[in-house]
């Protein structure tokens, strides 16, 4: 299950998608909009993506993780558009027979997603300013969530 959605992510659906009688371990990761980055206050985030390529990259990551970590299944859903405080922008569910690979894969998937999947976040700060986040620059916010 790989999706890009414009409304609330239903994590129950991800858990169901990856669960079976063989999945002794299921790990779900949720990335949510956080109110404070240091002292700066966020009003909301807005995400944009390159849809066809983002879906292709998510599917490739899914297949690579299943192979690399010996998983049973992976589901990934990313939301685009406005994501309010406390709401989920990305959900990753991983299932495996044993718990270790499920944790390792969940960690690897979100790390890798943040590096290669063409999705961008815009900060709408409480002071009224806005900022596209393009990491690894002196002049721009880097994302450390």
């Amino acid at each position, binding site marked *: 299950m790989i999706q890009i959605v414009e409304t609330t992510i239903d994590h129950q659906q991800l858990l169901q998608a990856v669960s079976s009688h063989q999945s002794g371990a299921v790990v779900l990761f949720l990335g949510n909009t956080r109110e404070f980055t240091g002292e700066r206050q966020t009003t909301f985030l807005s995400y944009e993506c390159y849809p066809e390529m983002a879906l292709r990259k998510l599917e490739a990551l899914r297949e690579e993780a299943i192979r690399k970590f010996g998983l049973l299944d992976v589901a990934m859903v990313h939301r685009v558009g406005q994501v309010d405080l406390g709401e989920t922008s990305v959900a990753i569910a991983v299932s495996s027979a044993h718990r270790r690979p499920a944790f390792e894969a969940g960690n690897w998937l979100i790390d890798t997603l943040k590096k290669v999947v063409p*999705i961008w976040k815009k900060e709408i700060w409480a002071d009224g300013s806005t900022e596209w986040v393009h990491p690894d*620059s002196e002049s721009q916010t880097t994302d450390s969530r």
Partner: protein
Amino acid sequence: MKILLFAGLKEAIGDEELEIRVEGRTVAEVKAELATRFPEVENLVRRSHFAVGQDYVSDSFRFETTPDEIALIPPVSGG
């Protein structure tokens, strides 16, 4: 050839696509022209990657005469 723009690049250049000659040139050469035409995003262009047919290509990649869909991908920040 039209190339797709996103996020900070789209906002700075003011359009979601851009006409530029790519056929037979390398990614590095096209980036150099972009930096000249849009000096305000020189830094961001340098840190961006081209995708051809929705796969990343390196700076030494040379565009075909009739390439697939081309996009200029600024550093990503999903998640």
